[in-house]
């Protein structure tokens, strides 16, 4: 999959649509004996690896489950604090599954409005007058493309850096939005888009771009 995510942000910076089309990266499960040779820390209702990267377990990965039972925030399923639990030798050997934490819908909401502000900051920082906001943001592993319409709605696509044809895809998504969200009389403006037809057509458009093999030359 070369297109990872699609976000639609309304004029006020609220996230009104989000779609992920990637499958989460491989997760690693490993059995540990006492003492635990990986340093864990609690962060934002999650237990993260802070030091001791190895065997596919990376810094930043979160503890997803212990002995096959999913965690409940920072606690085990039966309500014990994970850090305390792992300090106790009687609980060993223990099998822990690690993985990259997926963004919760709340976090996505937050990030979207943060990007909304960054976009504004981008245009303010410009040394030239009349700069647009952030149109593209490039990292090692993905490129973020943002298209803002004249009415102020932002369409954001996260894609593989080598994926081409994103500009026309953004326009296409704008068309799909105007057709299947706005022309649905029961959709209220500025509100989250929960329209089956919008979903379907968006996925179709993503597939078309991906199937077209629009990777640039040399890939």
């Amino acid at each position, binding site marked *: 999959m070369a297109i990872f995510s699609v976000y639609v942000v309304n004029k006020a910076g609220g996230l009104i649509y989000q779609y992920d089309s990637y499958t989460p990266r491989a997760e690693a499960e490993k059995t540990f004996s006492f003492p635990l040779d990986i340093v864990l820390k609690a962060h934002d209702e999650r237990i993260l690896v802070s030091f001791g990267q190895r065997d596919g377990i990376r810094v930043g990965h979160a503890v997803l489950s212990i002995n096959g039972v999913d965690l409940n925030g920072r606690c085990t399923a039966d309500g014990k604090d994970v850090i305390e639990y792992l300090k106790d030798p009687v609980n060993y050997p223990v099998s822990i599954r690690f993985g990259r934490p997926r963004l919760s819908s709340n976090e996505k909401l937050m990030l979207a409005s943060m990007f909304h502000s960054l976009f504004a900051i981008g245009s303010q920082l410009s040394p030239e007058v009349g700069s647009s906001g952030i149109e593209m943001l490039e990292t090692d592993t993905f490129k973020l493309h943002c298209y803002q319409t*004249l009415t102020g709605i932002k369409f954001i696509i996260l894609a593989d850096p080598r994926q081409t044809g994103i500009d026309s895809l953004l326009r296409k998504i704008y068309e799909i939005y105007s057709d299947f969200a706005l022309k649905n009389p029961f959709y209220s403006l500025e509100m989250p888009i929960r329209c089956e037809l919008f979903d379907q057509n968006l996925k*179709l458009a993503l597939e078309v771009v991906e199937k077209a093999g629009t990777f640039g030359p040399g890939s």
Partner: protein
Amino acid sequence: MSRQGNRGTEGKKMNSELFTLTYGALVTQLCKDYENDEEVNKQLDKMGYNMGVRLIEDFLARSSVGRCHDFRETADVIAKVAFKMYLGITPSVTNWSPAGDEFSLILESNPLVDFVELPDNHNGLIYSNLLCGVLRGALEMVQMAVDVKFTQDTLRGDNVTEIRMKFIKRIEENIPVGDE
């Protein structure tokens, strides 16, 4: 594939009679529901507004029109692109005010009134008032507050149908950042 595929910037062609008759049914129903013409005009304008705020996105997504930097440009786009796209007519733009903030759209033909004869008891009815609402709503979404009204109407005995548009202000607080 869905209708998306065969839909170009031209839009789907449909029989305008169905549209005209539907609009006629709407207006007559409103006339039954409300006592006076004033109220009907108001309802039509309100409905038009709600259509306009949605239609503008369709228009922008399908035409490659950029931001207009003055009211003359706006007038041109409305007359030559938008009216053509949605009603299949091209009104002429005339009667500019010296300040350039007011103009008239003269409609030689108005598809909404193809079969209409206004009865005597509806002197106050502005039959096509929906259009005013559409224009107002659409322009508001691109941060332009305008005043739109019919100043002449062939239905009411005038020689032409004239929509007068007056620019009120840019809605500064709604202008998207990084735009302009």
